[in-house]
């Protein structure tokens, strides 16, 4: 039976069909749906870990003890998991372990577009790259088998257009879930220098065997075509190349570490002109050039962004492979430019109040990863920076220690899920090093940006069971923070008062701005109305960047079906024109 599945759902299906026993990860676009789908299969244990490093370590334990395992994360999550990852190829596995790295060329939902294929080379993993959902499912199963056969972790590397595109997949029957026997083997699993050196040699041997496998695996195959133009490609680029150059010879690489160097040489010898088509970095190209083979790659195709067939047609046109396509008149030529429609904080979002206040107080704000990056755009403009998960706290502390002018004028903002992911150590550092910084934890009781996943402070786990709920206030106190205040961000005046007092108080302080995500706990109260007599059209309410508020004919207008009655605008309005219910205490 065939079903239309996204790459992510297909990977979950592949794990289900191929005997996976444990699945762990941390939410991150475009990887999140893999674990969400797996959690609905009976017989597989799945969990959200607080961060990717922990998720991988959970997976390593399960695999060492003999269980087939999948660990999922977005590309930048692999940075967090890099420490265990870089030694994992040394120890190897027992039950198969597949790490899914979901990369994001074009940065649809990420802070960078790093090319994680280099991790496979760096950490000496086997790497598989699917180009559609069927391959995603098949490679998940094959990855587990390769992992066990070669005693090596396997990276299944997807990109957004593989993870989030749907295509037809033939479903199979699940095999029995079996745990391989575990026996203590310190020379394999205890990475002290003496044993590490032995495993380093073993790794070189295993890599050599994998290279041989790569030469012969059906994952790497030639699509025969004319002998004039040959293309070496992998992942989604394969599909684009097939569409743009249906007659060309194509070497499709499904296994991209280690590369099948002999197969590449053989293919190169068959064609007159050779191209390498790969998004992001010249990962294949560099290795092919090292073989002394002449190829055209990044001098023709861009280093940045996502590819599509239009772009490839233009590039192959420039190279003289395709005749220039006839100039088609753009139907939009001469029409006005469409103004942007950026995503914004939702109506009723509790973060809005915090950013509005921070902006009013003219503070320097180090930000973090989550929905609240949306508070950095005009007109809220409530954040100065966003680097990576957890960075806000360390950065605020650094500013506090280094720049006297900004001392007492800087705060860090971080979400609840992000704080538990990698903010705790930053806060511990602030306490230990006697920081005066102020940290605001935007506690909306969920991992909102990626679609409301649970975390250690929500009281539920991925499998839908009740779970112990970490008390963030007590956690901060236990780290040594003496001043921890919990405020309702929707109470603007108290929020402002607390922030003003904490930023000038010596010692680290934490303000927990607690209110559930507006999408999670839909409390729709009567919409705000505008008293036309009192409204002076001053536009103060517009500074909230609320999707329900606009100015029409110099008067504020609240769109009733967009407003959820959070009454923030009522509190901001200077003339009392905004009329709503009582402020919820």
């Amino acid at each position, binding site marked *: 039976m*065939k079903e*239309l599945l996204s790459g992510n759902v297909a990977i979950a299906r592949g794990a289900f069909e191929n005997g996976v026993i444990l699945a762990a990860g941390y939410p991150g*676009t*475009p990887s999140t749906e893999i674990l969400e789908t797996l959690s609905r299969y009976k017989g597989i244990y799945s969990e959200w870990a607080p961060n990717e490093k922990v998720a991988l370590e959970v997976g390593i334990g399960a695999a060492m003890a003999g269980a087939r395992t999948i660990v999922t994360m977005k590309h930048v999550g692999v940075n967090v998991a890099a420490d265990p990852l870089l030694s994992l190829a040394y120890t190897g596995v027992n039950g198969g372990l597949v790490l899914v790295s979901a990369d994001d060329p074009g940065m*649809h*939902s990420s802070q960078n577009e790093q090319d994680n294929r280099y991790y496979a080379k760096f950490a000496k993993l086997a790497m598989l790259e699917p180009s*559609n959902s069927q391959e995603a499912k098949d490679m998940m199963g094959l990855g587990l088998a390769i992992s066990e056969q070669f005693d090596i972790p396997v990276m299944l590397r997807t990109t*957004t*257009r593989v993870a*989030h*595109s*749907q*295509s*037809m997949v033939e479903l199979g029957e699940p095999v029995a879930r079996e745990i391989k026997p575990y026996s203590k083997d310190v020379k394999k699993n205890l990475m002290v220098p003496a044993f590490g050196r032995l495993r380093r040699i073993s790794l070189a041997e295993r890599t050599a065997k994998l290279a041989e496998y790569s030469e012969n695996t059906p994952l790497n195959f030639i699509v025969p075509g004319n002998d004039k133009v040959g293309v070496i490609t992998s992942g*989604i680029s394969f*599909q*684009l190349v*097939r*569409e743009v150059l249906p007659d060309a010879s194509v070497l499709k690489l499904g296994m991209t570490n280690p590369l099948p160097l002999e197969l590449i040489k053989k293919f190169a010898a068959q064609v007159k002109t050779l191209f390498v088509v790969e998004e992001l970095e010249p990962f294949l190209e560099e290795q092919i050039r090292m073989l002394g083979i002449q190829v055209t790659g990044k001098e023709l195709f861009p280093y940045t962004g996502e590819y*599509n*067939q*239009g*772009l490839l*047609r233009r590039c192959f046109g420039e190279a003289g492979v395709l005749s220039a396509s006839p100039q*088609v*008149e*753009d*139907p*939009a*030529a*001469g*029409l*006005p430019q*469409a*103004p*942007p*429609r*950026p*995503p*914004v*904080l*939702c109506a009723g979002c509790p973060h809005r109040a915090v950013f509005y206040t921070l902006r009013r107080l003219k503070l320097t704000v180090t930000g973090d990863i989550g*929905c609240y990056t*949306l508070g950095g755009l*005009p*007109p809220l403009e409530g954040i100065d920076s966003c680097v990576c998960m957890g960075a806000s706290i360390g950065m605020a502390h650094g500013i506090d220690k280094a720049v006297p002018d900004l001392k007492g004028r800087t705060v860090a903002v971080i979400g609840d899920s992000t704080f538990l992911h990698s903010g705790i150590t930053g806060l511990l550092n602030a306490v230990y090093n006697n920081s005066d910084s102020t940290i605001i934890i935007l506690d909306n009781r969920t991992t909102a*940006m*990626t*679609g409301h996943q649970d975390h250690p402070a929500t009281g539920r786990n991925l499998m839908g069971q009740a779970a112990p709920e970490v008390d963030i206030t007590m956690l901060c106190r236990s780290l040594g923070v003496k001043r921890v205040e919990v405020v309702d961000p929707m109470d603007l005046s108290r929020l402002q008062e607390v922030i003003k007092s904490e930023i000038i108080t010596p010692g680290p302080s934490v303000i927990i701005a607690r209110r559930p995500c507006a*999408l999670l706990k839909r409390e729709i109260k009567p919409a705000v109305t505008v008293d036309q007599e009192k409204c002076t059209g001053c*536009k103060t309410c*517009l500074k909230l*960047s609320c*999707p329900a*508020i*606009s*100015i029409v004919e110099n008067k504020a207008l609240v769109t009733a079906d967009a407003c959820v009655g959070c009454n923030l605008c009522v509190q901001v309005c200077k003339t009392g024109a905004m009329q709503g219910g009582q402020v919820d205490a």
Partner: protein
Amino acid sequence: MLKPVDVLMVGVGGQGTILASKVLAAAAQAVGYDIKVSEIHGMAQRGGSVVTQVRLGERVYSPLISEGEADVILAFEELEALRWLSYLKPGGTLIINNQQIYPVPVLAGVAEYPQNIIAQIQSRGVNVQVLKALEQAISCGNAKAANVVLLGALAQKLPIEEKIWRDALAATIPPRLLEVNNTAFTAGFTVGTVSVGC
């Protein structure tokens, strides 16, 4: 031989583009099409621009539609029609819902919502079919069924029989909402027989 069709569905988060693409995919699958659907989500709930690309054919390689390639653009909102118009191929059809949803820069007064978008697009010689999908959905009994009104108009343009569409709706939409959506589909499907404007 199944005729290849590329459909771009564009709108604003919350308008139901994803459900519409699911019904289209189910109908296309029933007639034996190879299908690829690509969407960027994640920000959809936060009022951003959303686009779903649906490609049908005997064999579909790329999941993406490039500029100048879409046979049909199904626009759930006027500004989004304008934003994605370059993706329409010469001779392609734009099905447009005459609804305007102001983005925050417009609400905030830092950008202007272009005037008379539909007339301006028509002046470029594009095949345009205008629907009042929201009004029609409301008269069918549920404003949220505007997506299915638009889907009905799209169905009229595609080589897939009506019965298959009905089955696809039944397979995709929860039973309690099926009746109103079937009515909404009929509304769009009937409008789709008459070319409006242009």
